[in-house]
């Protein structure tokens, strides 16, 4: 009897095997919605960090986020993932969709890896000032702080007990790295322009003064020469006249 059961079970298993392979292939290829995919990842690990943005995220991004949200004392589901892809879901769109799919109570955070724009919503047990901490974290950091720094700041503010004050008293946002670099570049550009004009002015002054001196010198020399020639001619004419006068006087003397 036992052998009969074994044969039956093995037969069933063997009969299922060829059928299972194509089923798996179809499963692999079947398009899964964005929220369902993220929910599946969060089901495996409550902190999911995409591999699409390694330049915007540090190597230990997942560990740092895990450490930051562990202090919040509530189940937290964090998905750091690019937003605005096929369906153009923003972080705000994705949070309720992921919650619906995962269907577990807790704090849900969806953050774009490259920016400080993120969404955090608490489902069940609203003890944390989530909204205030979210807005305060976004406004206290530069726009390119990245998801990890933003979530760390979010956890700090949520636990600080002054989330509302910090949200209200947040000053102007600090400058982003690219803004700082652009400002430095603008400064260097202005300095370069100033130096270029300086060099241009130096070149102009150098040859301008030389040309001016040359022209003035030439004019002076020409004037001096003309004066000298005129004096010489005048002298010559005087001598000639004096001789003529002498000749006339002699002539008159002879006549007498």
């Amino acid at each position, binding site marked *: 009897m036992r052998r009969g059961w074994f044969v039956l079970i093995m037969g069933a298993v063997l009969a299922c095997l060829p059928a299972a392979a194509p089923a798996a292939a179809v499963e692999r290829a079947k398009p899964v919605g964005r929220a369902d995919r993220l929910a599946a990842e969060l089901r495996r690990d409550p902190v999911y960090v995409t591999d699409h943005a390694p330049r915007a995220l540090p190597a230990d991004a997942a560990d740092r986020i895990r450490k930051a949200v562990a202090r919040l004392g509530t189940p937290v589901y964090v998905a750091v993932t*690019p937003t605005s892809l096929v369906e153009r879901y923003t972080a705000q769109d994705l949070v309720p969709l992921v919650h619906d799919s995962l269907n577990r109570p807790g704090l849900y955070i969806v953050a774009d890896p490259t920016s400080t724009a993120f969404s955090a919503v608490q489902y069940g047990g609203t003890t944390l000032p989530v909204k205030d901490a979210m807005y305060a974290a976004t406004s206290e950091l530069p726009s*390119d702080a990245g998801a990890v720094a933003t979530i760390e700041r979010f956890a700090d503010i949520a636990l600080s007990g002054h989330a509302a004050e910090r949200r209200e008293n947040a000053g102007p946002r600090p400058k982003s790295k690219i803004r700082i*670099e652009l400002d430095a570049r603008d400064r260097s550009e202005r300095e370069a322009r100033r130096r*270029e004009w300086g*060099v241009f002015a130096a*070149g*102009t002054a150098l040859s301008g003064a030389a040309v001016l001196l040359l022209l003035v010198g030439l004019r002076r020399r020409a004037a001096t020469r003309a004066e000298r020639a005129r004096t010489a001619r005048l002298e010559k004419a*005087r001598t000639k006249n004096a001789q003529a006068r002498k000749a006339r006087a002699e002539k008159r003397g002879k006549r007498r």
Partner: protein
Amino acid sequence: MNTIARVLVVAALALVAPLPAAVPAAAKEPIPVPSYAQHRLERVAAALAEDPLFVDPDMSTALDEPGRARVRAAMDSTARAIGTPVYVVIIPNKSGSESDGRDNVFLHWLHDRLGRDGLYLMASSSAWFEDEAFNVPRRLTYIDDEGIQQPADSERRFADLADRLVAWLGLARTAPSASPRIPELYSSPDPFGAEHRLRPVEPETKAPFLTGLLLAGPFAGATLYGLGLGAAAYRRRRRSPRPAAVSAAVETHSGAPTEPTVKWLRRTGRRELDRLRELLPDAAENPGRAYAVSAYDVAQILYDDAGEDPGRALDLTGAIVLARLGRAALAGKTAHPAPPCFVNPLHGPSAQQRKMQLGGTRARRRPVCSSCAGRKAPVLKVPGPDGPLPHYAVPGVWKDTGFGADGDPIPRIQEYLGVE
């Protein structure tokens, strides 16, 4: 992918198998990619090794099931037609990615990772296509012009993705033959951590300096020189009042004789020359000095030259007139003193002009002194062969110049004397 296609792909791979060994150095990563940043490349390469169509899970809704089937069929037939594998990758590639958002860089690095030549086609989250053909015997550049690289409707970017992919692969299938080659990656992305680093602007010194030295400088020098000349001329003009204005202030000699004797002329000439000579040393800065000196020179020569000769009474008259003109130039600080009275140059400077009929010639406007302006005054007469003659009737340099009635007489007199 059906079995036949796989066999064909394997056959194609076997055909091009010797080629990957020759993958050039240009396709290698020119910048170091940290190991954690290579995860995605490894993931996609591993998936492509199994299946040449890769749709990232984050973009899985970009292609639905029938769309994927159509794309696979198109990939198979294109791979068969061109004889190399065809890979289609649909994956987001934004600025934070390992390739810094550059799709061509991603494809090059993916090709390196996979180690297989073939036609790589990529669609990112913008739904634009990027392709790289590694040792593909087709010329694919013209496909870029067909308008299927980008979505028709930017609001629904992925609506026509399957159609565009199939169309693109169809065009690749029928593309003209070309010799297989490895495309070059002309620029590499910024190194990790240095994405936002900008090089400070270095000043360009040579070109501005040379422009200033060779172009602007000489121009500026010449302009300044011209302006200086202009300013000097303007100052001279400003300093020297108009001849007509000063004439009233200048001495007149309306009582001068109409028929002066040689003795009178000699005496007056000597006195006028002395007066002028005394003024010259103190007139170093006077704008009229150059004129006064010239006038003195010619007047002195005329005076010396004429002697007591009654035939040269006009020259003696000229000497007096010129000496007075020299003094008028100094007094008026001008190089253009008013011409003497034409009726009798010994009257001194003219004050106005009057129309005169002289010796049957046409009436002309002539400068006259204020005493001769309103009346028909007797004209200066000099001894001639047949009695006294009006001064303008004696041919010679004085008739030509009118004692300055027609402009500065000095150059003409210098010429007459042989000075100029």
